[in-house]
């Protein structure tokens, strides 16, 4: 017989055995920032959901929205929903990761400010500005407005999306920097040392998940920054042009990966929260680490299934993408979802509002994933690509998994603080409405997708409005469930507020996570410094007359030479900043370092436009100074990177250089 009263410090609403592995209470800081992010995310999701219902009603011809407004709303719905889910999942992961990793509140607030500013810019660009280029802003569509939007709204939208990406990047850098410092470097944090038998104790599962997500997130954000910078340049220099295939690869590498990562962000939180209701801890095993290493690679490489119908993409890339897209299913199906069902089965699971939503989200992830895997087989994709089947599968795992988890995470915080949950009947009504509405809505899209109805149509093909009408009804049912959820948790929030004074303080094991004792630099040994110096020496080639002449063959080559100059500065900065004497003088300026490594490549790309450098070509001294400026920006980035520790420092500088190379590949216009 299990105890019916919870041990001191653990709310009775959780599983009684949860006390054996759950810290007594989150610090106010963790809870406040978690609530800020989750509250904002859920509010954004609700607002964007209203737009979604409006669009579906318009497709059903129940309401009348002009095509121009439909596509504005569609653009805002996509960008806003992704941002809302990203924010909610960042908050959830922060909340669980900070138990063991000393993430910085200042960084979270800076990330929040950037994302909020970006979201505001996107709203201004779409609603009053009329921008309707789709949230994927597929180049060169932003510059073919068909009379619908102006240059300022293009710029506002692109800058807004860039700010959202930067905010996510700030969070990711902090995760990498702090998690690797806490858990013995990259190999320790990812669990590789444990996998190889060198560490007896594994890192916590949320640290493994968070580090994989952060590194993949930084890679995706870098590609996004490169193409966004190119597009921003085009708003003030019409000479900038794009290679459509490379640009499409970058857009989907950024967009698909970011959308995919919201699920993996959630996974990190699930490893901590589901055990609290199942009474069984989630342990990091060697199979778990191996699975996440697979996901590490698959998340980055699966995106190119978006280009199956771009037949000029090399066939080897298409076939590889097909294999990787299927392989991505394996760690999810065999490890995360499967092990969660093992955790729940026969556990005397505590069914609360939060824990029910956590559980049903797994079904949404699995069923949506099956729809995605079917679409990722090339001959099937030939018949489903860009039909509403695509809309169906991603709404299944976003609405019925990620949105549901966002509500679950919020409910968990409130259940913890109020130490109560809602009645079984209310819970059944809320979850029932969400599931009936959600699966009904996505079901209409699956059917219409199989029929061949294309996606992103303001006007539906003749004879298909019935699907939209049924979808609208189901969307309203889902909205009703969402509203009922908010009504249900309002009393919990009130109780939590009333009990704020008597809130359980953190137990002795909940002390502030330990911060690393000493600041480390990216290049610590003589060999590492020698390699850094050697890279700088090789990069000097970017200044030689031979390379300069060869770079005149085209804009892409010219931009690539600039990347070489940036690399020279970056390598020099990394070497100099890593020297003990210099490092001591620079001090512990982590925030400044982060700002430098983000701002320097952005500045470089934003001035790398034909209007600037073509006018300099008649003036050798100024032209040389321009190239020296590229190296100087690299130097700033390199010095900044040294303030971020060994792993985050090397990673951010490498990605800064990679960003400029990707820019060179995608931006082809202008003279040499």
């Amino acid at each position, binding site marked *: 017989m299990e105890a019916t009263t919870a041990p001191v410090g653990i709310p009775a609403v959780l599983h009684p055995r949860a006390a054996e592995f759950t810290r007594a209470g989150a610090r106010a800081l963790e809870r406040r920032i978690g609530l800020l992010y989750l509250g904002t995310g859920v509010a954004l999701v609700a607002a964007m959901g209203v737009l979604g219902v409006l669009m579906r009603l318009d497709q059903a011809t129940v309401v009348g929205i002009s095509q*121009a407004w439909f*596509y504005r709303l569609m653009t805002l719905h996509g960008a806003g929903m992704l941002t809302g889910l990203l924010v909610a999942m960042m908050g959830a992961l922060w909340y669980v990761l900070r138990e063991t990793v000393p993430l910085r509140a200042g960084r979270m607030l800076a990330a929040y400010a950037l994302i909020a500013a970006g979201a505001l810019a996107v709203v201004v660009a779409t609603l009053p500005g009329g921008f*309707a280029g789709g949230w994927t802003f*597929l180049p*060169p*569509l932003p510059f*073919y407005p*068909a009379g619908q939007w102006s240059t300022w709204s293009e710029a506002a939208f692109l800058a807004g999306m860039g700010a959202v990406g930067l905010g996510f990047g700030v969070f990711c850098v902090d995760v990498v920097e702090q998690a690797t410092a806490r858990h013995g470097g990259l190999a320790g944090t990812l669990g590789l040392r444990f996998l190889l038998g060198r560490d007896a104790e594994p890192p916590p599962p949320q640290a493994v998940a968070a580090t994989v997500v952060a590194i993949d997130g930084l890679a995706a954000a870098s590609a996004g920054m490169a193409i966004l910078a190119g597009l921003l340049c085009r708003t003030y220099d019409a000479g900038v042009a794009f290679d*459509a*295939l490379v640009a499409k690869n970058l857009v989907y590498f950024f967009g698909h990966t970011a959308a995919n990562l919201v699920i993996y962000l959630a996974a990190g939180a699930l490893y901590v929260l589901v055990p609290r209701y*199942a009474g*069984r801890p989630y342990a990091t095993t060697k199979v778990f680490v191996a699975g996440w290493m697979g996901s590490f690679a698959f998340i980055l490489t699966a995106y190119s299934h978006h*280009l199956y*119908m*771009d*037949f000029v993409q090399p066939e080897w890339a*298409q*076939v590889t993408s097909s*294999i990787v897209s*299927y*392989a991505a*299913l*394996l760690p999810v199906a*065999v490890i995360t979802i*499967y*092990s969660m*069902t093992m955790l729940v*089965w*026969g*556990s*005397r*699971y505590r*069914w609360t509002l939060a824990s029910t939503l956590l*559980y*049903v989200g*797994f079904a949404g992830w699995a069923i949506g994933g*099956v*729809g995605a895997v*079917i679409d990722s*087989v*090339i001959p*099937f994709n*030939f*018949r*489903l*690509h*860009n039909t509403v089947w695509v809309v169906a599968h991603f709404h299944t795992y976003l609405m019925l998994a990620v949105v549901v988890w966002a509500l679950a995470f919020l409910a968990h915080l409130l259940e913890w603080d109020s130490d109560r949950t809602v009645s079984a009947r209310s819970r059944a009504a809320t979850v029932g409405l969400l599931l009936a509405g959600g699966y009904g809505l996505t079901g209409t899209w*699956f*059917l219409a997708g*199989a*029929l*061949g109805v*294309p996606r*992103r*149509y*303001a*006007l539906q*093909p*003749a*004879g298909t409005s019935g699907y939209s009408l049924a979808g609208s009804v189901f969307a309203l049912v889902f909205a009703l469930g969402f509203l009922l959820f908010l009504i249900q948790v309002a009393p919990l929030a009130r109780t939590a507020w009333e009990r704020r004074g008597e809130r359980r303080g953190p137990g002795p094991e909940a002390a502030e996570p330990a911060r690393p004792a000493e600041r480390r630099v990216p290049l610590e040994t003589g060999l590492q410094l020698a390699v850094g110096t050697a890279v700088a020496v090789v990069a000097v080639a970017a200044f030689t007359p031979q390379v300069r002449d060869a770079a005149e063959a085209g804009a892409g080559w010219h931009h690539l030479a600039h990347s070489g100059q940036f690399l020279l500065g970056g390598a020099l900065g990394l070497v100099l900043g890593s020297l003990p004497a210099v490092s001591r003088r620079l001090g512990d300026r982590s925030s400044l370092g982060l700002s430098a490594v983000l701002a320097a490549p952005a500045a470089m790309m934003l001035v790398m436009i034909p209007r600037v450098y073509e006018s300099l070509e008649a003036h050798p001294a100024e032209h040389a100074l321009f190239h020296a400026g590229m190296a100087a920006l690299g130097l700033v980035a390199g010095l900044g990177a040294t303030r971020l520790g060994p792993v985050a420092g090397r990673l951010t500088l490498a990605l800064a250089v990679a960003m400029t190379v990707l820019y060179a590949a995608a931006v082809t216009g202008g003279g040499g």
Partner: protein
Amino acid sequence: MSLHYGEPQVALGAVFAAIALALGVAFAVIGLQAGTDVSVERVHRIGYRLRSRWLAFLVVVGVLVLGISFFALPYPSGASGERTVVQVASGQFFWTFTPPSVPAGTRVRFDVTSVDVNHGLGLYDPHGRLVGSVQAMPGYHNRLDLTLDDPGRYVVRCFEYCGLNHATMFGSFRVTPR
């Protein structure tokens, strides 16, 4: 022209519905048994044994499905040879086909491009069934090989969001009886 379900799509939809239903039942059963008390040792013994089989099953299904799919890729191979090349140009918001028609049974190579932004050529047969799609990209030519046996009017819709009139960007291509 109203749309109709194509046979491949019906098969895919049925497979998906069956798997989704099976997953729904599995989650419901596990959820119903979540309230019982099973020792962790028993959960691990049964769970890990089933997991190995689950992994093996997914790997076998993947190898089979992907392996077969690689013999049915829609990509063109080699030069156009004896195929009739149909030049397809697209732009905001139009399609042009040169030549605009071919006799039934002709082995066609669609050479698809765009003069402005990305579009997508979604081809529907005279019965309103989606045959397939290929993207139209500025600066690139995507080539799609098909043999069109059914005579009649093939309708083209845009399959990549391209701006204001995306939903009404129609085109048509005629296949004449032999």
